[in-house]
């Protein structure tokens, strides 16, 4: 087990191996499974992610039972085809992929939790634009997920990844951070640059609370994944450009943990504070819970 991001990238640098290889080796050790078996399992996850993006993007999209979310990924697809978007097509495609996935999740469809279901749109949002931008091969797509998983394990074991424990920064924040680090690796960056991307992405979302309306994984969760994905791309580009985090990456992770633990319960997945606590949030809660 790698104790810290520093430990992980020092090993990768010393052994001149990508983080994805270290992750596969560790998985073989802990589970006793063959490399092929582990690889195939990750390919299945990738397949589920692709299917969710496709499902949420096609036609009118998918809609949740409550009607709170749905159809936005399809709107964005339409907009991309008919308009000249302000933030550029790469960004809007990432947004579409992220939102499509979380709309499928909210509609009780099948997703791959990365690291959680509430933040399941962030990694696909990042991953599936890289194919266009840097001609990612299938192998690199799978590697992206192993790298993200390696960094994610360090975050989960040193901090937290549940909204109830650390707010949305622990979910979408962590997803964005590991996605940024993995994007750097597949783009040919160094392990050090991956660590910087992770630190930048996580610091940028530090403090984000978990305030789901009516306790549902819909508002604001679905749209937050759009920010998770795009924040990761920006952080990855910054790291590849040579920007570094002033605060060492492992300290950023501890800071996220500490901020999370000091958040009031009302802002940690209880559906009470923040947006959930607004007049409209409360009205929606009342209405939906009576319908259910």
């Amino acid at each position, binding site marked *: *087990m790698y*104790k*810290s991001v520093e430990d992980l990238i020092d090993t990768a640098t010393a052994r001149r191996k990508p983080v994805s290889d270290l*992750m*596969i080796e*560790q*998985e073989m050790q*802990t*589970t*006793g499974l063959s490399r092929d078996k*582990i690889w195939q*399992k*990750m390919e*299945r*996850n990738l397949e589920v992610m692709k299917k969710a993006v496709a499902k949420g993007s096609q036609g009118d999209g998918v809609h949740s039972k409550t009607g709170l979310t749905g159809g936005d990924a399809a709107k964005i697809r339409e907009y991309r085809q008919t308009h000249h978007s302000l933030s550029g097509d790469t960004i809007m495609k990432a947004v579409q992929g992220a939102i499509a996935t979380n709309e499928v*999740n*909210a*509609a*009780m*469809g*099948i*997703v*791959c*939790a*990365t*690291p*959680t*279901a*509430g933040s*399941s749109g962030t*990694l696909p949002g990042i991953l599936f634009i890289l194919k266009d931008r840097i001609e990612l091969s299938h192998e690199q797509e799978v590697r992206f*997920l*192993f790298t*993200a*998983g390696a960094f*994610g*394990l360090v975050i*989960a*074991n*040193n901090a*937290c*990844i*549940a*909204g*109830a*424990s650390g707010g949305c920064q*622990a979910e979408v924040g962590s997803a964005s951070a590991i996605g940024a680090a993995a994007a750097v690796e597949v783009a040919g960056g160094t392990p050090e640059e991956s660590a910087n991307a992770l630190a930048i992405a996580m610091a940028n979302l530090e403090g984000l609370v978990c305030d*789901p309306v009516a*306790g*549902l*994984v*819909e508002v604001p969760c679905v749209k937050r994944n759009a920010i998770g994905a795009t924040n990761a791309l920006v952080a990855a580009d910054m790291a590849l450009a040579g920007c570094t985090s002033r605060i060492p990456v492992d300290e950023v992770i501890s800071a996220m943990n500490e901020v999370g633990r000091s958040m009031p*319960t009302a802002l*940690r*997945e*209880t*559906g*009470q504070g923040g947006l959930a606590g607004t007049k409209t949030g409360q009205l929606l809660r009342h209405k939906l*819970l009576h319908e*259910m």
Partner: protein
Amino acid sequence: MTDRYKSVFDIIGPIMVGPSSSHTAGTLQIGRMARIIFGGDPAELVVHYYDSFAHTHLGHGTDYAIVAGVLGMEPDDRRVPMAVRMARNMGIKIRFIEEKQHSPVGHPNTAWLELTNRDHTLKMGLIGCSIGGGMIEVRRIRYNDVTFNTPGPLPIILFRDVQQSAEIHMKLLKMVMAVGPMLNQQSTNGKRAAIYSFTMKNPVKPAQLKKLQEAFPKLALLQVEE
């Protein structure tokens, strides 16, 4: 630093029916672990929710997820959202209780499951916590009159020894030690049986479990299959 999360698939995965990894996928696993302890379908299921679970179980699909687990479903089973209705059609009595006080084990995502048979001669259960990303901990286990706290992490190897024999305990301990490093072991005596539990550091492989169960047929393994 902890090593609660061990596998890359704890972070990238599980593949699951939405909407929440901690409230749906994780609680489904809590239900599955309760089924393993009980050894099949119960006649009655009572679920106590605490803290975040008490506030959001309806919205997050926690009810159907727990019941799906108790029925033995996998997290990506399309029938997961229908589980409560299915269980009631099977004649299982189900009650959900939103507890006002805080979690007895101090975690915001806590559920206490009680499973009983028709004539109430068997009463088993557990307190499970969903710690994020579909990962769970089991903090307390009940076998009839025997209740004990566990450190939390899985896998846990459990054996109910009706002979309450030190010899059996030693034999099992030796075999468990051969499986791999152990984080914790306990034995708790009740009126009808002693319960031995072992928290393992690494996943127990299928071949290892088979060997254990050849010697101890009723041995149970609380482990989330990847």
